[in-house]
């Protein structure tokens, strides 16, 4: 054989641990051996402990090797990896890897398979079926299907997408907007980034369907500036989508017009809050707006605006192509469909786990995660980003869905699950939550702006062992004021990590003078 197809992810996480070096080395050694190869820079499969994961097409299979460093490449050639030869880092057919085979990838079905910018690959793997079907439906019918699917916002608040869409559909206006929230500010989350880098046409298709449904002609994807690769990929994908008629004046030859552009954030967490995001897109300081009016009635530049997260829009093509009932056959209770969980922090096997709602926390962190990277026991898990709760292994039977998490004093947020080993000190984490709020507060309400600084000081007192009982009471009072007196969830939910740390890890808030020097 003297031709081979090799896949090495171009995803920024894979590149951050040396994927480009691997590509350079494979190219060099193939040339030296006079072997013709094609290297595809696919998205990541989200199996991060195996990155850089090199895959070789062998017949119908894709044989994987990982994690591969530049230095390992010569050994791969010796092992005849281009024919799928055995090697200590060989993981066999990638799709048979139990970690992947057990998942139910719907929104992420194409991520990691192909060149993210190849429209022919996109179509060959089920792309555009949803958009073509949407063009045969009325706006009402599309909205009804999305409502029926049970799809809820994946950005954090979990509001039913169909209800938001209906409000914008019913609004009378000469101009309507779609804004995709790709600010992904929550620490421990990376699904939006991976989807945009690995399968951007799915997001574009989802937004085009939403545009047709509600009658919007202009769309904006607000992407955080910490994601330069995602911004570049999305811009390239938009240009290609325009060439193929997915965007522009006549979507796929129809009478629908939809234009899309990317806006970059500028390093502000609160700009992920939807009205602060609108202010930011309008070029202003990212200060949260009071509601009403709802953005669906008066949003960007005062026009009716659908705001959804990347994963919300990206779930729509599958819902429209396969129907609402297929989607909602997954999940539990009022949490229907799949959730893209993200395992990060001190975890052995971190990455993307897409599965129906209702998997337990233990299955996620011990089953998929395989415990900690350091090998020490798990002490704490934070779910749902910096405003989410800290849980302990006692909570491992918790069902991962909107309602169960809420009942347990937490929230799903954007689906990030961050693991900590026994080295973590939850009083320090609680203090960090307050400090983070103080730094990122937009400044509009006093409990958030000042309460957070006061909160951090109070926790510092507890850490130093001063008047512990009185300071704990003060801290709880402060939390109550922040919860009740904040306009948005920044100040309103900062108490969640703080209180959950106090409740689930009481020991870390006791006898502090003994542990602090």
């Amino acid at each position, binding site marked *: 054989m003297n031709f081979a197809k090799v896949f090495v992810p171009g995803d920024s996480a894979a590149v*951050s641990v040396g994927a480009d070096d691997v590509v350079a080395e494979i190219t060099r050694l193939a040339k030296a051996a006079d072997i013709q190869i094609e290297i595809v820079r696919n998205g990541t499969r989200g199996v991060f402990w195996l990155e850089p994961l090199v895959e070789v097409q062998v017949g119908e299979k894709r044989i994987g090797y990982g994690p591969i460093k530049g230095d390992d490449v010569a050994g791969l050639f010796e092992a005849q990896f281009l024919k799928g030869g055995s090697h200590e880092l060989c993981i066999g057919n990638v799709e048979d890897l139990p970690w992947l085979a057990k998942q139910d990838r719907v929104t992420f079905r194409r991520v990691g398979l192909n060149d993210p910018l190849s429209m022919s690959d996109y179509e060959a793997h089920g792309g555009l079926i949803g958009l073509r079907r949407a063009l045969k439906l009325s706006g009402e019918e599309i909205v009804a299907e999305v409502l029926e699917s049970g799809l809820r916002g994946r950005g954090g608040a979990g509001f039913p997408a169909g209800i938001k869409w209906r409000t914008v559909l019913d609004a009378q206006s000469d101009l309507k907007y779609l804004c995709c929230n790709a600010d992904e500010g929550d620490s421990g989350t990376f699904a939006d980034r991976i989807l945009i880098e690995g399968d951007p046409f799915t997001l574009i298709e989802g937004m085009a369907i939403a545009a047709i449904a509600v009658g919007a002609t202009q769309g904006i994807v607000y992407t955080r500036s910490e*994601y330069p690769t995602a911004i570049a990929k999305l811009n390239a994908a938009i240009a290609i989508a325009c060439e193929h008629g997915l965007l522009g004046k006549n979507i796929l030859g129809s009478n629908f017009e939809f234009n899309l552009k990317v806006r970059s954030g500028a390093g502000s967490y609160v700009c992920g809050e939807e009205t602060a995001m609108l202010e930011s897109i309008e*070029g202003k*300081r990212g200060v949260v707006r009071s509601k009403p009016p709802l953005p669906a009635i008066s949003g960007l530049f005062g026009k009716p605006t659908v705001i959804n997260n990347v994963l919300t829009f990206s779930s729509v093509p599958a819902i429209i192509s396969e129907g609402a009932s297929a989607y909602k056959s997954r999940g539990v209770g009022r949490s229907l469909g799949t959730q893209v969980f993200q395992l990060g922090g001190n975890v052995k096997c971190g990455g993307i786990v897409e599965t129906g709602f209702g998997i337990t926390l233990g299955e996620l962190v011990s089953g998929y995660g395989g415990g900690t990277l350091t090998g020490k026991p798990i002490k704490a898990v934070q779910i749902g980003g*910096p405003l989410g709760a800290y849980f302990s292994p006692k909570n491992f039977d918790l069902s991962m869905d909107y309602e169960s998490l809420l009942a347990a004093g937490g929230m799903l947020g954007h689906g990030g699950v961050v693991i900590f080993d026994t080295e973590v000190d939850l009083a320090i984490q609680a203090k*960090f939550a307050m400090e983070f709020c103080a730094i*990122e507060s937009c400044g509009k309400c006093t409990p958030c702006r000042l309460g957070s600084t006061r909160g951090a000081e109070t926790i510092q007192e507890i850490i130093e062992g001063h008047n512990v009982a009185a300071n704990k009471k003060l801290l709880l009072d402060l939390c109550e004021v922040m919860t009740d007196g904040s306009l948005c969830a920044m100040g309103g939910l900062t108490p969640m990590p703080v209180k959950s740390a106090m409740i689930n890890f009481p020991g870390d808030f006791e006898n502090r003078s003994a542990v602090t020097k």
Partner: protein
Amino acid sequence: MKYATWSKSAGLAVLEPFRDEPGPVLISLQALQREFGYIPAEAVAIVANFFNVSRADVHGVLTFYEDLSSSPPLPNEIHVCIAEACQAVGSRSLEKALKLAHGEQVRDVFCFGNCALGPAAMVNGVLIGRATPEKIAAAMK
């Protein structure tokens, strides 16, 4: 990263494409920052005049956003993630070591979306996973 030298005419050329942009202030400041590596004090009035907004508006935007800087760039831009997932794998001690070694060039960031391969850092625009002081030093100029 290589930046152009600031001058009023070079600044105006950067602003020109945004003349008809609705809500142009942030996007034009970002463009100036990309071009010159920072936003010089005199640019505030120039931007205000160009788009017919108040200086206070421009200044307000400039000071709100962490990315926008009014002082010239240092030789290296080292951004280290200090958010929770990276804290869980030692980013706080990495941050300390980096600040000790590279001072003002080090800036804190909350999350690069590389939370399963932390600690994460970015050196002059290049993302580094499982970051160590050695890897970061190797990526510096």
